[in-house]
């Protein structure tokens, strides 16, 4: 087989054993190809350095345990499904009778709930705000919050660099109150109609207002 330097890359990519043998014969008389073949083969040798087939004795037991657990889980799911499939195995007459009994049971239960616990239209849970009331509460709350923010802005220079331990205490207390306000606001955001949360938020705002007033008073003294 006649091989030249031009065939080298093609043989590297997809050469047959015969072509490799011919290339090596050519490389015996061509230093450039000899170096290229040596370097090319060296990469294959280097790759063997990435082989590490050391056995880890605890590895198969770990996999086996995971596989066995999966089998158990699958069996449990299968049992649950079997319960339903047993129903499917019943005759059509029995299935109809069971479905009818279930519908009857549901009707009696809902009828009983309707009769025993009638709900008047205006008699909703008082702890839930109706939408119109909710809007009023929210706008009042926003105005109140703005007023407190103005108060906080006035007190802020004194709180940023507290001159006395008392002012430092007020500063810490206000940080705690702000954190509680943030938590409650997040909760009211998720459940805006809950009046109980609104009351708690109002109480904390009032506490913040009193604290800020005390800070401002101590400033005037």
């Amino acid at each position, binding site marked *: 087989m006649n091989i030249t330097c031009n065939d080298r890359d093609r043989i590297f990519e997809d050469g047959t054993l015969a072509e490799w043998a011919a290339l090596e014969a050519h490389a015996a008389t061509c230093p450039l190809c000899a170096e290229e073949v040596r370097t090319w083969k060296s990469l294959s040798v280097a790759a063997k*350095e990435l082989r590490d087939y050391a056995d880890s004795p605890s590895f198969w037991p770990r996999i*086996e345990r995971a596989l066995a657990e999966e089998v158990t889980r699958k069996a449990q799911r299968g049992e649950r499904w079997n319960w339903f499939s047993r129903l499917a195995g019943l005759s059509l007459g029995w299935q109809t009778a069971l479905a009818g009994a279930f519908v009857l049971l549901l009707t009696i239960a809902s009828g009983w709930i309707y009769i025993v616990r009638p709900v008047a239209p205006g008699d909703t849970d008082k702890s839930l705000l109706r939408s119109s009331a909710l809007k009023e509460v929210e706008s009042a709350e926003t105005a109140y919050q703005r007023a407190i923010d103005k108060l906080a802005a006035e007190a802020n220079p004194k709180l940023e660099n507290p001159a006395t331990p008392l002012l430092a205490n007020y500063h810490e207390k206000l940080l705690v109150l702000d954190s509680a306000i943030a938590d409650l606001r997040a909760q009211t955001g998720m459940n805006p109609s809950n009046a109980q949360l609104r009351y708690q938020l109002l109480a904390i705002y009032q506490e913040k207002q009193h604290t800020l007033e005390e800070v401002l008073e101590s400033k005037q003294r």
Partner: protein
Amino acid sequence: MGTMGLALPWEARISTRRERETRVEPSDLGEGRSSAVMDGLSEDAALAAACRSGDLRAYERLYTMHGARMKNLARNVLGNPIDAEDAVQETFLKVQRSIASFRGQSSFVTWTYRILINTCYDARRSRLRKKEVANEDSEEPPRHEPRAPGAHPSLRMALERALDKLTQHQRDVFLLYEVEGFRHAEIAGMLEMTETASKNTLFQAKKNLRLMLEPPRSSAAEAR
């Protein structure tokens, strides 16, 4: 180009010719070899059937035959033995969960390796996402943990670093062919590419690796 040697200790190399001869490529198959391949195929089908029946001993056989190789491949993709073991375990669970859907379009073992490679890249992606959340560099390649000392630790480390700079396909093909010893036909099945594409990707990978591992010409010339 390429008249310089690689800047690494190559003296201890063994003949790759012998390795090429032991790796059975489809074009090399004679009658004796083809009957061996047929035996292998029927064993593969029997293993798949046993796994499908839920026999845990079949999974143990799969582990005995391929566990070490699977773990080594996962380690080379993921960079450390703990993640590699997790990926191999996850692969066995995925095989168990989806064996019913295995229709035998490819060999069972090829299918298993395909699952392993996908699992490794899922793990790698999830690790990158965690790093992104932690504001770390998302392009950072996996850090390779030290292994048991081999014959040429510096060569191995240089190769690991160079492999990280290859494209995913080039790295996969190089690892599967040169490190794990799979045939191009098998690699084609695992990576869902043609055999020709596998050969070409390996060629490109080795060309790039050679460039990365070759010393700068001037310094090599000075050394001489």
